[in-house]
């Protein structure tokens, strides 16, 4: 019975173990009694509580009409493929998904950047790229620096290896990567029926992919003016916080450029909301409460699309003409031209057109934004402002005459006008576009005595400042205030103490201005010194039920005077007279083309040297008409011209067209 003895303690100890098990389980039972019976009702109540769930449905954006109430931007119902990213999805998962999707949909690859391609190349050829980093570098650098080095070492040749199909996969992957977790991201807007069919068939193999009804902007006038209308896209990452703070959802489409961006708050619709209660499991209870959404408000533009189209056609045909025949070689660098037409009294933009020649395709594409976002040396068109600067500062009077002959500074430099004009006053100086007269103004502003060939009280910088301040009063070099986001204000060359530079500045050779600034400048002269804020939108209207009628007026954009220039009225009238002489005087630079016009135009032409060696200039024209009661002002900028005068031809045809249409009741009504 040895065993028994050995084991004698075991039953007692096992019972002790059982006792502790019993105690532990008792604790559980007591606690369960407390949780489920004592506090049970309380927990039950909490668990029965419902959640309010709101689903939102997109409301259409407002439409855009032209001043004749023709639809310029419309909404087109389309289907989009969306991707909802799960929190744990990896780059590899999305690459696989993009690869699969590429077999079902076609995706444009034009938005893929070089950086995207490099990242993609590294993802595809990880090992190969890793080999390009030496062991020494690996030791020294951290992971980010190594990746940067890898990026640097992906060559152009590597990127050329990427096939068209791979690029398409990359273009899709970009969209997949762009999203936020749990929020649907558009992979492709406006998929074809075939694509929908193929995707639906394989939806099970495509986690996160969905097909949803969507809206796309539609442009009945095609590419005409489209560049200024702007784009509607998903909210860019950099602006996400801005839009989220304004009640947008992550996957919303917003205006990302130009008018669509500027008037986002107007065009954006109110989403319809459906609120319903759910239990904790997410099952809806009862009837949902629906709050109807509203389409965004509509915009009515100041632009007349008929006129706009005609201006575009004029630019294109004149560019073609200047680039053909005997001018073809000389004008090899001529590519573009810009025209802004506005009402000088109200600031309404009637047309804003530009064309750009694409040597690859031989086509001319619309480039209206060049009027607002590109700037050019404008040449003699600024002379009106230079004369006013002279008059206002008192360095000249309306009767001051200068002798127009080549200026000689004794150091071999000779500066002259197009021709020697003899003794001339400010009117003739404008009419014949005298450089020497303007230089005299600049020299006086700088405190230089030409007859003595020395400074009396040197102040070249002061001359710069006076001229620039005067130009700025007309809108040259400062924001015009147009209703577009971040307009260009031209290139400001700074202030120098070189007298010659100040003199060239006085004839428009240094700073650069946008065509829109030139239009505002000439309008200010036409408008007796009142600088008007240009605008593209005339009215904001409520959406209407009847597609043939506009909705109720919400806001009319009233003419807004930005400033009145400081000069005396008589001084402004002198410049107006000078501008009229340019187009009607015996020696007027633009008179041959405009003197017989019944609409009595006034204006100023300009030539700014861009490349002296090959004789390449920017050719410009600013004009308004009729001279007594101006109703239209234009600016024409044709950069990089070596032969021919497309600025005159375009200006003439645009003004002719305007008055022809006016006779028929358009485009100013």
């Amino acid at each position, binding site marked *: 019975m040895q065993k028994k003895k050995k084991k004698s303690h075991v039953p007692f100890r096992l*019972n002790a173990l059982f006792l502790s098990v019993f105690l532990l389980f008792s604790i559980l039972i007591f606690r369960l009694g407390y*949780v489920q019976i004592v506090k049970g*009702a309380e*927990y039950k109540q909490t668990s*029965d509580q419902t959640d309010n769930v709101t689903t939102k449905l997109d409301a259409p954006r407002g439409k855009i009409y032209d001043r004749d109430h023709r639809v310029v931007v419309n909404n087109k119902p389309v289907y989009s493929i969306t991707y909802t990213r799960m929190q744990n999805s990896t780059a590899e998962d999305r690459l696989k998904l993009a690869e699969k999707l590429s077999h079902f949909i076609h995706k444009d690859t034009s938005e893929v950047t070089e950086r995207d391609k490099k990242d993609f190349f590294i993802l595809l050829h990880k090992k190969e790229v890793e080999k390009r980093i030496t062991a020494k570098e690996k030791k020294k650098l951290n992971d980010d620096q190594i990746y940067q080095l890898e990026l640097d070492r992906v060559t152009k040749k590597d990127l050329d290896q990427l096939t068209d199909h791979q690029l398409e996969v990359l273009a899709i992957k970009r969209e997949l990567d762009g999203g936020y977790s749990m929020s649907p991201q558009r992979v492709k807007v406006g998929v074809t029926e075939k694509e929908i069919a193929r995707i639906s068939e394989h939806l099970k193999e495509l986690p996160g992919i969905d097909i949803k009804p969507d809206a796309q902007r539609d442009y009945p006038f095609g590419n005409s003016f489209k560049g200024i209308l702007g784009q509607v896209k998903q909210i860019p990452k950099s602006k996400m916080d801005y839009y989220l703070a304004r009640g947008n959802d992550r996957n919303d489409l917003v205006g990302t450029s130009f008018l669509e961006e500027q008037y986002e708050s107007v065009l954006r619709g109110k989403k319809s909301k459906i609120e319903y209660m759910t239990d*904790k499991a997410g099952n809806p209870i009862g009837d949902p409460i629906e709050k109807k959404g509203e389409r965004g408000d509509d915009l009515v533009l100041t632009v007349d699309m008929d006129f706009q189209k005609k201006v575009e056609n004029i630019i294109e045909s004149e560019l073609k003409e200047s680039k053909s025949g005997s001018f073809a070689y000389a004008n090899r660098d001529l590519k573009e031209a810009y025209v802004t037409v506005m009402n000088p009294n109200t600031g309404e933009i009637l047309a804003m057109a530009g064309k750009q020649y694409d040597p690859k395709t031989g086509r001319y594409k619309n480039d209206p934004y060049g009027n607002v976002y590109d700037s050019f040396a404008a040449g003699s068109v600024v002379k009106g402002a230079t004369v006013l600067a002279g008059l206002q500062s008192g360095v000249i009077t309306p009767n001051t005459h200068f002798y127009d002959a080549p200026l000689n500074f004794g150091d071999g430099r000779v500066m002259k006008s197009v021709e020697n004009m003899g003794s001339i006053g400010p009117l003739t100086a404008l009419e014949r576009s005298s450089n020497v007269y303007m230089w005299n103004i600049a020299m006086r502003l700088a405190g230089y005595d030409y007859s003595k060939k020395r400074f009396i009280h040197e102040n070249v910088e002061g001359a710069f400042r006076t001229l620039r301040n005067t130009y700025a009063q007309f809108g040259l070099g400062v924001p015009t205030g147009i209703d577009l986001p971040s307009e260009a204000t031209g290139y400001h060359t700074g202030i120098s103490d070189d007298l010659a530079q100040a003199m060239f500045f006085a004839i428009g050779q240094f700073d650069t201005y946008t065509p829109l600034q030139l239009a505002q400048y000439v309008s200010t002269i036409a408008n007796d010194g009142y600088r008007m804020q240009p605008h593209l939108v005339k009215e904001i209207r409520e959406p209407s039920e009847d597609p043939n009628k506009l909705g109720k007026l919400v806001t009319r954009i009233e003419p807004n005077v930005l400033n009145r220039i400081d000069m005396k009225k008589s001084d402004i009238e002198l410049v107006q007279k000078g501008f009229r002489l340019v187009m009607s005087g015996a020696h007027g630079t633009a008179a041959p083309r405009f003197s017989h016009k019944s609409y009595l135009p006034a204006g100023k032409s300009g030539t700014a040297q861009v490349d002296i060696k090959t004789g390449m200039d920017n050719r410009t024209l600013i004009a308004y008409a009729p001279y007594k009661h101006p109703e239209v002002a234009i600016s024409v900028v044709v950069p990089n011209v070596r032969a021919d005068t497309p600025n005159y031809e375009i200006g003439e045809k645009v003004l002719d067209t305007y008055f022809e249409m006016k006779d028929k009741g358009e485009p100013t009504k």
Partner: protein
Amino acid sequence: MLMDNEKKFSPWQQIDYNLVFILFLMFCVSCIAIYSAQQMAQYDQNFVVKQIIYYVVGGIAIVGVMFLDYDQYRRLSWYLYGLGIILLIGIIIAPLSLVPDINGARAWYRIGGFAFQPSEVMKVALIISLSNVIASHNEKYIIRTIREDLILIGKIALVTGVPFLLIMMQPDLGTGLVFIAIAGSLMLVSGVRWRLIFIITLIGILFIATLVWIYFTFPQFFIDYILRGKLYQLDRFYAWLDPEAHPDAGYNTLKAVLAVGSGELFGKGFLHGSVYIPEAQTDFIFSIIGEEWGFLGTSIVISLFFLLIYRMINVGLESNEAFGSYLCAGVIGWFTFQAFQNIGMNIQVMPITGIPLPFISYGGSAILACMIALGLVLNVRSRTRKYMFGSNQ
């Protein structure tokens, strides 16, 4: 060797059908609860079917375990222990492809489509080797002084300490505590003097108390040298003691208590649970039972565990060999601790650790290990010689 009054039955005739029946009831509870849990979210796999397969595989394992006389396991104990240790070391040195990192811990081997947790193997191996160590020690030292008891405690501590340290490297505190629970219950049954058991318990309590004291008195020292900067380790405790104030860390605790509590006395009914708990089929299966079947259901589940352990205690009491009793005690320590810890964390009695509820939670490794352990107990019972006239010595 057979005594006259000893009647011999074949082991298969002595199967404890009480235990088998309790196991069957647990199987039913498990399937019903998992079926409820998988309604909660969009799972593309049917966990119930898989659980049934695991049970079948586990059943085969029980039969396999029954073939050898449990005495044979005593001889094999060191091989099993060595295998367990090698597998645990393997976890540390194996490549990521074989041992993937899941939520910051590496605890699973993944081979092909199968995954298994070596710590489950170690639990079985630990019980067998500790039982062997204690049985051998007690056979050797018939007359026991404090010295012999201390040697035994040292042996138990050594045998348990090695796998415990390895498991803490994963890190898996929950499983580490299971090892300690197994060692503790075996030490209790091993016959070590009560005085020593009290002293060890006291040391344990003092150790924890010291940690708490350091935490409150020298928090910076605690963070720098005890947590080694891993502040998130504290979340577990914050979430347990005050989940409302730490809703992120305490999310599971809040949800589980809400689910169990809202079940009230009779539950919301099968498939009528409404509190969403992620991955409820594994560690939070008890909250599903509590919500849908109420206090009634939870009491039944606890009673099933109580009956299971009661039966195992009986097997341990009836066993003719001390080694058999020790096996039972080890298994009891294991099941009791896991059941208490798992149910406890569902009702905020214990902090949350990743320990499944034996026989009920979904999971292949765990079911298989529990079945093997139960197989050992059944084995002990089947090979217990019954005396016709009983033995009341």
